[in-house]
C-alpha cells in the first residue's frame, strides 16, 4: 500500500518537474524604480501594452500589477495585491496578456473577488473559460431593441418605470434611502418568478458585514444558486475596486453570449469613481472637475455600454444593468450623477423625504424615468398603469397645497383621495416582490375606485384581502394573468373577476 503511494507521489513529482522544465524562452523584463500608495513605477518593458498584466518578483513571491501609464521613460502600474511586499529593484516581467477572470456557470452561488478568487471559504473555482476583464461592447448590428420585461417585483417600478432586458436603469438617491433594497428585491424576484435571469451583484467598497448579510439573505430566499457576488471591501486596494465592475460584467457577458439573461447590479458607481480618482491622482494624471480625471465619463460609459440586448443572430441573450449612485443631499447635478444619468436609459430616484414619511420604496414619481422600458412592459401591467405616473405626480403636488387646510373643490379632493390610496397601495415591504397578477389586480382595484371608501390606513389590508380571495377562488385565472399577456380591463374576464373580488374585499374595511 505504502509502495503504491510512494510510486504515485514520485510520478506526480516527476510530472511537476517536467512541466517546470519547459523552456519558456526570454521574457520581457524591467525593474521597479519606485513604489508607494499601490502604484509601482517600472523602468524598461518598452513592449508593455495598456492594461497588460505585470508580474513583480518579490522576496515573498510574485505580486501582480497592471500597466496603466505608458510613458517614454517609465511605466506606471497599479498593484493588485499588497504594495508593502514590493520594493525598488524588484524585477518585473510582462505576462503577455491582459487581465482575465474565470467565467462560467461554476461561479453561480459563489462570492469572489474581482480576480475570481473565492472569498466564501469554498473550494477553488475551476472554470473552463477565462475572459478578459475589459472587452469592447457589442456593435450596432449585434443588438436588438429592448422588448422583454425584467420584472423587479416592485409595483411602483414595474407600473411606472418598467425595465426591459438589456436596459441600463440607474438607481440614484442619498444614503439610507433604500437603493440597495430595490436591487435586492429585483434579484429575489428573478428567483420567485423563475425568470432564469442570473444575478451578478458587484459590491464596490461596501462594508464586508453588509455583503455578508446580503449573501445570508439571498441564501435564505433561495436566490444564491442563480447569483454571483463580486465583493470588494473598503480595505481593498483601489485597483481591485476599480476592476470589480468590469470583472463582474465579464462574468455576466458569459451568460449574455450564451443565449442567457443576466442582471448586473453595481453597488455603487460613486465609490468606483472615487477609487478611479485615487488611482489617477497617484498616477499623476491631471485632475479635472471635482478632482476626477478627464476620462471618468469613459470609465462608466464603456462599462455600461456592455449591457445590451443581443440580436437573434447572436442568440437573443441580454445583460441588464442596475447601476447605483449615491448622491449628497439629493444633488443630482453633481459630476458623477449627471454623467451616469446621461449614460443610462433612465433612473429611479429615491427621495429621503418620502423614505422618512414611511413611503417605501421611496421612489420619486416626478424625477424618475424609464426611457426604453415602455415597450418591454407586460400587457397586463401596462393596461392598468396608464395614468398612474401622471396621477401620482399631480397628487404629490396637490398634497403640498392641501397641507394648508384651505377649502378644496370636489375634483381636487377626489384626486387627493385617490392619490393617497395609490400611494398607500404602492408601499411595499422589503423582500416581498409582487408577481404580475398581484400588481395588476391591486392597481386595477384602486384605479377603478373600488377602494375609494376604504380608509387610507386600511388600504393594505383591503389589498391583502383582495389578493387572498383571488388566489383562493381563481388560482388558475390568476396564474394565467401572471404570464402577463392578457390586458386587464373592466370588460375583460380577469378584470371582471378583480372587480367582483375587489368590491367584496373593500366591504370589510370601509369606514
Amino acid at each position, binding site marked *: 500500500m505504502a509502495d503504491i503511494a510512494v510510486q504515485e507521489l514520485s510520478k506526480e513529482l516527476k510530472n511537476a518537474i517536467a512541466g517546470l522544465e519547459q523552456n519558456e524562452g*526570454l521574457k520581457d523584463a524591467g525593474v521597479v524604480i519606485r513604489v508607494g500608495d499601490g502604484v509601482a513605477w517600472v523602468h524598461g518593458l518598452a513592449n508593455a501594452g495598456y492594461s497588460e498584466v505585470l508580474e513583480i518578483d518579490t522576496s515573498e513571491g510574485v505580486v501582480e500589477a497592471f500597466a496603466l501609464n505608458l510613458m517614454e521613460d517609465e511605466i506606471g502600474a497599479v498593484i493588485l495585491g499588497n504594495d508593502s511586499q514590493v520594493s525598488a529593484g524588484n524585477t518585473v516581467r510582462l505576462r503577455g496578456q491582459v487581465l482575465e477572470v474565470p467565467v462560467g456557470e461554476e461561479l453561480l452561488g459563489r462570492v469572489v473577488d474581482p480576480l475570481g478568487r473565492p472569498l466564501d471559504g469554498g473550494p477553488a473555482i475551476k472554470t473552463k473559460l477565462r475572459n478578459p476583464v475589459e472587452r469592447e461592447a457589442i456593435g450596432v448590428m449585434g443588438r436588438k431593441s429592448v422588448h422583454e420585461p425584467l420584472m423587479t417585483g416592485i409595483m411602483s417600478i414595474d407600473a411606472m418605470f418598467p425595465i426591459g432586458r438589456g436596459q441600463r436603469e440607474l438607481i440614484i438617491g442619498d444614503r439610507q434611502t433604500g437603493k440597495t433594497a430595490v436591487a435586492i428585491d429585483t434579484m429575489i424576484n428573478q428567483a420567485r418568478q423563475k425568470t432564469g435571469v442570473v444575478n451578478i451583484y458587484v459590491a464596490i467598497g461596501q462594508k464586508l458585514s453588509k455583503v455578508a448579510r446580503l449573501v445570508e439573505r439571498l441564501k435564505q430566499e433561495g436566490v444564491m444558486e442563480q447569483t454571483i457576488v463580486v465583493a470588494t471591501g473598503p480595505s481593498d486596494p483601489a485597483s481591485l475596486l476599480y476592476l470589480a465592475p468590469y470583472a463582474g460584467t465579464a462574468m455576466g457577458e458569459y451568460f449574455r453570449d450564451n443565449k442567457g439573461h443576466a442582471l448586473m447590479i453595481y453597488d455603487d458607481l460613486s465609490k468606483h469613481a472615487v477609487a478611479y480618482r485615487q488611482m489617477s491622482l497617484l498616477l499623476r494624471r491631471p485632475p479635472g472637475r471635482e478632482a476626477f480625471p478627464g476620462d471618468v465619463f469613459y470609465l462608466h460609459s464603456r462599462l455600461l455600454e456592455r449591457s445590451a440586448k443581443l440580436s437573434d443572430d447572436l442568440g437573443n441573450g441580454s445583460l441588464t444593468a442596475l447601476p447605483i449612485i449615491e448622491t449628497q443631499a439629493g444633488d443630482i447635478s453633481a459630476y458623477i450623477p449627471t454623467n451616469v444619468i446621461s449614460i443610462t436609459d433612465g433612473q429611479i430616484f429615491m427621495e429621503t423625504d418620502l423614505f422618512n414619511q414611511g413611503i417605501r420604496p421611496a421612489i420619486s414619481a416626478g424625477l424618475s424615468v424609464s426611457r426604453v422600458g415602455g415597450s418591454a412592459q407586460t400587457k397586463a401591467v401596462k393596461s392598468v398603469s396608464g395614468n398612474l405616473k401622471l396621477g401620482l405626480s399631480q397628487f404629490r403636488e396637490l398634497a403640498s397645497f392641501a397641507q394648508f387646510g384651505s377649502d378644496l373643490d370636489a375634483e381636487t379632493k377626489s384626486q387627493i383621495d385617490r392619490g393617497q390610496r395609490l400611494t398607500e397601495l404602492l408601499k411595499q415591504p422589503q423582500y416581498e416582490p409582487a408577481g404580475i397578477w398581484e400588481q395588476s389586480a391591486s392597481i386595477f382595484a384602486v384605479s377603478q375606485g373600488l377602494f375609494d371608501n376604504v380608509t387610507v390606513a386600511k388600504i393594505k389590508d383591503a389589498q391583502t384581502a383582495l389578493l387572498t380571495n383571488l388566489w383562493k377562488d381563481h388560482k388558475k385565472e390568476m396564474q394565467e394573468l401572471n404570464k402577463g399577456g392578457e390586458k386587464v380591463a373592466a370588460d375583460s374576464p380577469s378584470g371582471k373577476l378583480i372587480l367582483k373580488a375587489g368590491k367584496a374585499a373593500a366591504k370589510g374595511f370601509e369606514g
Partner: protein
Amino acid sequence: MATKISRRKLANWSAKRLASGDPAKNVMHELGAYLIDTRRTHEQSLIIRDIEIALLSEGSVLVNAVAARPLSDEAKSDIEAFVKSEYGSNASVIIHETIDESVIGGVKLETPDKQIDATVRNKLEKLMA
C-alpha cells in the same frame, strides 16, 4: 526654459556615439557633465540601463549570466548562440558573468530588456508556490 530631455533620447544619443566608435570615456564624460548641469545625477543608473537597451538597436547585446559556478567555454558559446537566436545572428554578444551560489545550479540570463531564469532555485520556488 529649456525642456527636459528624456532619458530615452539621452540613451539613444550615447548609444549612437558609442556604436560609431567614440571612446566610451569621452561619451560618458559629456553625459555626466549634462547630468550635473541639469541636476539629474540621481538618474545615472537608469540612464545606464537605457543605454544598454539603446545599444540593442545598434547590434550590441550585454548579457549578465548568473550561475553558481564559473561557466565553461562550451556553456558560454551555447549562451552566445542562444542570445543570437533571439536578437539576430549579427548581434555582438558581450557576456558578463556573475557568480551567485544561492542559485544552486543552472543559469539566469539577463539582457537589457529580457530575462530567462533557468536556475534550480527558481524551479524550486515554482514548485513551492
